[in-house]
């Protein structure tokens, strides 16, 4: 329903359930690949691959912390907020569609 003119950013990036789970985990706690893999039913390479996509999309950044690399939501970009708003409008328009159809069908039923 939502026309995403931005290719793989926005809703597209979180369309994958595992990627969405990673995004949610990072929203609460900056984590390493290992920590993410421990909390999810996927392998470390799979986690790494999803993280790369999230990084390329600007939702996530990483930093070195000693010997490990820690991932977190991108604190300076606004892509995370944009993604959130995108989802809000998706849901809102779906609800509007239902309401409009319902409003229009009422008079017909009375006739």
């Amino acid at each position, binding site marked *: *329903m*939502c*026309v*995403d*003119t*931005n290719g793989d*950013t*926005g809703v597209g990036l979180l*369309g994958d*359930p595992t990627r*969405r789970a990673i995004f*949610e985990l990072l*929203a*609460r706690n900056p984590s390493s690949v290992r920590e993410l893999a421990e909390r999810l039913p996927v392998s470390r390479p799979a986690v790494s691959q999803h993280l790369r996509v999230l990084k390329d999309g600007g939702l996530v950044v990483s930093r070195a912390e000693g010997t490990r690399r820690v991932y*977190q*939501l*991108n*604190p*300076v*970009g*606004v*892509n*995370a*907020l*944009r993604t*959130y*708003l*995108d*989802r*809000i*409008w*998706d*849901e*809102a*328009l*779906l*609800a*509007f*569609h*239902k*309401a*409009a*159809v319902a*409003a*229009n069908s009422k008079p017909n039923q009375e006739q």
Partner: protein
Amino acid sequence: MSELSVPAIRGKVTVDVPIECAFDVFTNSFDSWWPREFHIGQPDIAEAIIEPREGGRWYERGVDGSECDWGRVLAWEPPHRFVVTWQINGQWQFDPDPSRASEVEVLFAADGPERTTVEVTHQYIGRLEGSQVLYEAISEGSGSWPSLLARFEKAAVEQDKV
């Protein structure tokens, strides 16, 4: 802080109703369809309102009677178009500074006597206070973010089934 270039969000939906009906439901009956979880006041939301005129308020009224602004009506051209500001930042709070306001334009086009396409464009998102505050809001654990995402997921799945 300079304005960040963020692509606009564009949504489109086609409904089998006349254009006047689509505009009326979207604006005058805004409260009847806007998802209840998307609100910014402390109390639960009782009503969400778009005042039908240029310069009108877009706001919510909580169950305790308190009011929270969301934005202002910039253009009012029924039944074809209206524009409102979206001044809700990443911390899910109203930001009164107009220089940090994003804008939502809604266009209605009649595809036929009983068919209307509604296009929503949410632009200037880069003006909003961004994901730094969003990140903090999430980290502070209001608990709303994961549940919101879960609901989104549910809706998306249901949407796919249709």
